[in-house]
């Protein structure tokens, strides 16, 4: 439960498969359609796509930074939002009020509770035309939110497992140092790399990863991307990790990096930045000693490699789409829906 993801309700109650998630989304669209036909919701088209999710992510970040809450509360609020929107249409509620309520509840659960007045006031400072003065609206929404969560509110985040992974790396390095023939590479993450992993995890809340996979999958994915990113772009200041590829070896299930000289079995496809479509492609240089070491370590663990790869792919798609993100259109459609202009 609260110490253990494997016995948690996050796993038993709120973990989807790709299929069950697609079904849930389909149900929401059906609800939306029915309500639209009855004239119960706005006719404005407001799709819940990656851009909308980047927008919601940034709303929560802005409000969270304004009231200076811990990152963990922001992360929890993001998962509440994602969970809620697997059961309800974004058009049924005011999204500004939704994120405010999610953050209000998350602060309580993460033991950094804020007075409802404080949160509402700060939300009003950010979005005066969308957040009503009346704090009881948030209090009311909180009831419905808890109900939609089915009162399952304790969450496990990848931040802790990230630190645990690094502890394991430190331990390994320690053993190696006492070795008479130490290898020069160490997996221990530098402060910069840790920060990079941390940022990738922060960004991962835009995606469905937190309702699909255990938290450690996401932290392993962030470590992977960080190590490879550093390896693949030593000279360029690239924030686009989309130019590498990796896959599962079909014979022994081990993880490998593809390179030009290799045949790809099931390499991760690359995203075409223009079409946003995923296309097969080939990659990079020969993996460094560090990457080899990492894949060897990972292969020796029980971590589900297919899930890690899927998580990395999801993040790559996100980053490449993010380059074309433009919030003005989303803002405009929300304005039409909420204010009629």
């Amino acid at each position, binding site marked *: *439960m*609260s*110490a*253990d993801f494997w*016995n*948690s*309700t996050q796993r038993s109650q709120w973990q989807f498969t790709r299929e069950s998630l697609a079904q849930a989304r389909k149900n929401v669209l059906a*609800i939306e359609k029915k*309500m639209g036909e009855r004239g*119960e*919701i706005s006719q404005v088209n407001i799709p819940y796509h990656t851009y909308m999710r980047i927008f919601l992510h940034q709303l929560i970040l802005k409000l969270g930074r304004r009231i200076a809450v*811990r990152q*963990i509360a922001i992360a929890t609020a993001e998962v509440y939002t994602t969970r809620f929107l697997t059961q*309800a*249409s974004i*058009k*049924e*509620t*005011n999204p500004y*009020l*939704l994120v405010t309520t999610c953050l*209000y*509840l998350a602060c*309580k*659960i993460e*033991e*950094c*509770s804020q*007075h*409802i*007045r404080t949160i509402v006031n700060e939300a*009003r400072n950010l979005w*005066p*035309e*969308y*957040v*009503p*003065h*009346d*704090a*009881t*609206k*948030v*209090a*009311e*929404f*909180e*009831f*419905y939110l*808890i*109900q*939609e969560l089915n*009162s*399952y*509110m*304790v969450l496990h985040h990848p931040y802790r497992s990230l630190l645990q992974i690094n502890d394991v790396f430190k331990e390994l390095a320690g053993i190696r140092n006492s070795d008479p023939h130490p290898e020069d590479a160490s997996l221990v993450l530098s402060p910069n790399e840790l920060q990079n992993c941390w940022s990738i995890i922060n960004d991962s809340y835009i995606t469905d990863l937190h309702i699909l996979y255990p938290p450690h999958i996401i932290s392993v994915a962030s470590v992977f991307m960080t190590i490879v990113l550093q390896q693949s772009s030593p000279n360029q200041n690239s924030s686009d990790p989309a130019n590498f590829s990796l896959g599962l070896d079909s014979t022994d299930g081990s993880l490998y990096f593809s390179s030009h000289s290799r045949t790809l079995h099931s390499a991760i496809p690359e995203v075409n930045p223009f079409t946003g479509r995923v296309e097969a492609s080939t990659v990079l240089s020969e993996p460094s000693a560090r990457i080899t070491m990492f894949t060897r370590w990972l292969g020796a663990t029980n971590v589900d490699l297919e899930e890690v790869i899927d998580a990395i792919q999801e993040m790559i798609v996100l980053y490449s789409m993010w380059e074309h993100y433009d919030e003005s259109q989303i803002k405009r459609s929300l304005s039409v*829906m*909420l*204010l009629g202009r």
Partner: protein
Amino acid sequence: MNRQPMMAPANIFTLAPYRARKDAQKKTVLQKYSIVGYIAAGTYGRVYKAKSKDKLNAGIFAIKKFKNEKEGGGEITHYTGISQSACREMSLCRELLHKNITNLTEILLEQKSIYMVFEFAEHDLLQIIHYHSHPELKPIPEPTIKSIMWQILNGVLYLHQNWVFHRDLKPANIMVTADGVVKIGDLGLARRFNNPVQSLYTGDKVVVTIWYRAPELLLGGRHYTPAIDLWATGCIFGELLALRPMFKGEEAKMDTKKTVPFQKNQLTKIIEILGAPTPKNWPNLVSYPEYTTLTSHTHLQNFPTNLKAWYHSIGGNNKKGLQLLSQLLEFDPAQRVTADAAMLHLWFMEIPRVCDNVFEGSKYRYPNRRIYNDENDITGRASTKRGNDDAGAARKRQK
């Protein structure tokens, strides 16, 4: 945009379509349960005995209704959302699943009220102790005490393995079902301790009923450990044996200056039986905020260890039982026995054996929980009226 910022009108779109859709599907608490009567009242709200109307979920339940959180008195009250403690209790109970922890069936939210539906337990330790001490003392059979203690420790171990402190263990919060299974209840004060950013002390006015409060808390300790639950378990053990609270002190109340008072009376009660703590048996003692105050009460320093004599005076004669009691009531939280170590204590290994049914072989039959019918209206406007009967008052959380 160069438009003037506009303030959201009071009637701005909030969640109306969503609310209407959900409300249409919802079953109310009275559609799902019929109320048999009310069991207890406290500062948190009230507990009712209820029967499920749903054939798939048949049975008897205890429904805890929280008092509404409101701010401001008189006519103008502002609903301020769910209290932090209700949030904690809801989220923790939802995660916990163990045979010695009261099981939460569901949570219903309606009309600004929270209803937590728990499995019903016919007895609790307060009631069992009362039965054995009135009108005359008749000791609780050793097998019953042993099985109760083992099951309490089993529940506490589960909580601690899951990084949860109970923080309010006392006889009234230890339920026993009709078939003799211990159920630790009332997690209203429980906290997760995996990531304590702020000291667990802050923000909580009430931490553990004073009779069961561990010495490190009485001495002003702030960064405490799961060991506080083991101290309380020790106090409960002593109370099961003696049929009266072991350390029945009086709480020194917060004065007008809001300084935390020195709990002299409670510490005296403890020291009278256990002797004075010293830096020798408790190396960290000197670092507690109230240490100097403690040493300034010189008469408290003169009490020798007296637990053995106390144990014999209340009729205890099993050496291993005394040993476990003294390990639970160890002053130094770092040396106090942990739940898993306590469960391996030799006392539990010897005859009579621990039973799944704590009443096994016992000739005693305890009366059923008293039910009151004067206020059955569970959905009625949040009742602030306190239970005016003995049982209600006894279960009332100490402030």
